[in-house]
C-alpha cells in the first residue's frame, strides 16, 4: 500500500504516519516543515523499517506542488491512499485576525486540499482501489462564531467529500471524512482543553485511537467518522436544532472560554 500524507510532521499527521508504518505501508510524506519531515522519517524508518519518502512542500503554492509532482512522476510513484491532514487555524474572532491570516485558512484547508487531491487521484495505482481521507472537524457540524472561517472551511471539506464520494463510487474510490473533536497534539491544544474545563476534556479524542480507527474505517468503506460518543450526540443535535440557535449557543460558550474577542 502506497500512502501519501499531507501535514505529516504535525501531531495527527505523525500519528497517522505511525499507524501506517505499523501496518507496513510505504509512505510519501509532505509538509511545509522540512526539519519536522526528516525527524518523522527517521523515526518511522527506525521503528518500522518501512520505506519513507519525503518532500517539503507549500501546498498553497502551485509551483511548489508542481515541483513535488515532478519528483513523484520522475520516480514513477503511484498511490493507493491519500490522507489530507494539512490544515491550520488562527485563534481569535474575525476582526481580531489579520486579513491575510483568514485568507490563508481557506487557501490551505480548502484550495490546497483540492489541488493535492486532484493531483494524487490522477496518480493512483492503476487497477487497485483508492482511499481518500479528508481531515475535517467536529466544528464542521455547527456554525461557529469566533472560529467562523475555520469551521466553514471544515464544512466545505465535509460537503465536498460527501459529493466526491458519490462521484467516484464507480471508480473504486472510497472517501472518508474524519470529524474529530479536540486532540492533544501541542502545548497550545492542552491549554485550550484546560480552558474549556469539563467540555474540553469530554470532547477530546485520543490521538492514537483516532489514527487507528480512521485507517480501519477508511479501508472498510465508511463515509464519515466522528470519534467519541459525546461528539456524535453533539453532531446529531447540530443537525436538528436551528442553525441560528446553535450559533448563539456556540458564541456564548466560546465567549466564556476566550473572552469577547469578536471585535478586538
Amino acid at each position, binding site marked *: 500500500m502506497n500512502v501519501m500524507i499531507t501535514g505529516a510532521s504535525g*501531531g495527527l499527521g*505523525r500519528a497517522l504516519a*505511525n*499507524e501506517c508504518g505499523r501496518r507496513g505501508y510505504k509512505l510519501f510524506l509532505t509538509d511545509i516543515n522540512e526539519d519536522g519531515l526528516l525527524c518523522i522519517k527517521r523515526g518511522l524508518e*527506525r*521503528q518500522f523499517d518501512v520505506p519513507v519518502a519525503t518532500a517539503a512542500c507549500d501546498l498553497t503554492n502551485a509551483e511548489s506542488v508542481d515541483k513535488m509532482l515532478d519528483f513523484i512522476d520522475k520516480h514513477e510513484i503511484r498511490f493507493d491512499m491519500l490522507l489530507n491532514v494539512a490544515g491550520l487555524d488562527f485563534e481569535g474572532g474575525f476582526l481580531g485576525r489579520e486579513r491575510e491570516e483568514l485568507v490563508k485558512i481557506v487557501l490551505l484547508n480548502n484550495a490546497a486540499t483540492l489541488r493535492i487531491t486532484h493531483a494524487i487521484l490522477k496518480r493512483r495505482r492503476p487497477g487497485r482501489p483508492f482511499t481518500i481521507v479528508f481531515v475535517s472537524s467536529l466544528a464542521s457540524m455547527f456554525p461557529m462564531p469566533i472560529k467562523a472561517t475555520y469551521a466553514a472551511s471544515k464544512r466545505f471539506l465535509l460537503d465536498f467529500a460527501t459529493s466526491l464520494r458519490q462521484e467516484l463510487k464507480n471508480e473504486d474510490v472510497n472517501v472518508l471524512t474524519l470529524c474529530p473533536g479536540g486532540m492533544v497534539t501541542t502545548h497550545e491544544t492542552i491549554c485550550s482543553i484546560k480552558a474549556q474545563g469539563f467540555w474540553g476534556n469530554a470532547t477530546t479524542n485520543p490521538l492514537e485511537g483516532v489514527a*487507528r480507527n480512521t485507517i480501519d474505517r477508511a479501508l472498510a468503506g465508511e463515509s464519515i467518522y466522528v470519534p467519541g460518543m459525546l461528539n456524535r450526540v453533539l453532531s446529531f443535535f447540530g443537525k436538528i436544532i436551528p442553525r441560528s440557535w446553535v450559533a448563539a449557543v456556540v458564541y456564548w460558550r466560546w465567549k466564556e472560554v476566550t473572552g469577547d474577542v469578536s471585535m478586538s
Partner: protein
Amino acid sequence: MDTIVITGASSGIGLETARILTNHGFNVLGIARCEAKCNRAKERILSENPDAKITFFVADLMQQREVVRVAEEITFYLDKNCNGKLYALINNAGCVRSWYMTTDEGYEQQFALNHLAGFLLTYKLLPALKKAQGRVIITGSKSHKGIKVRWDDVMLCHRYNPLIAYKQSKLCNILFAKGLNDRYAAAGIRAYVVDPGLVNTDIGNKETGGLVNFIWALRKRHGVPPAVPAKTYAFLCMQKPMPEGLYYYLCKEKKYSGQVTSENANRLFELSERLCDIRYEEVEMV
C-alpha cells in the same frame, strides 16, 4: 574539581541535587528546557553559595537532535575545562503525560524523555565518563514494579494508558542501568537508579490535564521536599569506593523488580539503539 552533568536541573529534584553537589565543591553542568528557569536556578544556587561552580545548558531533551546538540556542547566544555573527564552523569529529566503525545520522531513522549533521552545522552558522553571512570545515576521510581515492558507495542499506541506508559518508562530506566553495568562495570563505569519516593514537585502538573493533573495535585501534598531524595544522589556521587548496588532509596540499596534481568536489559539496549540509530559498542573508548 570533578564535574557532574544533571538533566532537569532547573527545578525539583535536579535543582536540589545541583545545590547540594555545588556545596560539596563539584562543578555542576545543568541541562534544562527553559532559559528563564535556568537563570533563576543559577541565581538561587549562587545566592546561597557565591563560590558555586554552576553552568546551565538549554535543551529540550524530548527531541533527539537537541540531545545530540547539547551533548556536543558539553563535550566541548569538558575537553576545554576538565581534561575531557566527566565524573558523573545524572539522568534526571522526566515527564508525565495525560494523553498519547509524540516527539518530532513520532516517539511517545514519556518513553522518549524518561528513557531514550538518557540513553542517547549517556552514549554521547560515554568517552568522557570512561576517562573519569564515572558514574551514571538515573531517576527511577518504585512504580517500575508490577509491570513488564510491552515489547510488541513499546510506545503503547494501542489503548494508551498514561500510568502504564510512566511505569514502563521507569522500568526501562533500571533495565538501562543494568545493561550499562553489564557492559561497562569492568571498564570502571557504574550505573545506579534512585527511587526518590513521593516528592513534592510539579512533574505531574506540567503538560497534563484531567485526572492526572487532579490526582497529582492531591498526591504531591504528601510528598517529601526534593532535598530529601537529593541526598541519595549526593551519596552515590561521593561514596568511595563506588557502591556496587543498582537501586537505591534514602541512601540504601533496595530490592527491585524481577523483570530486571540481563536478557530484558539486552533487549531494551538493542531496541533503544535502533530507535536512536546508535551502537554503544562503536563508541571509541579512551
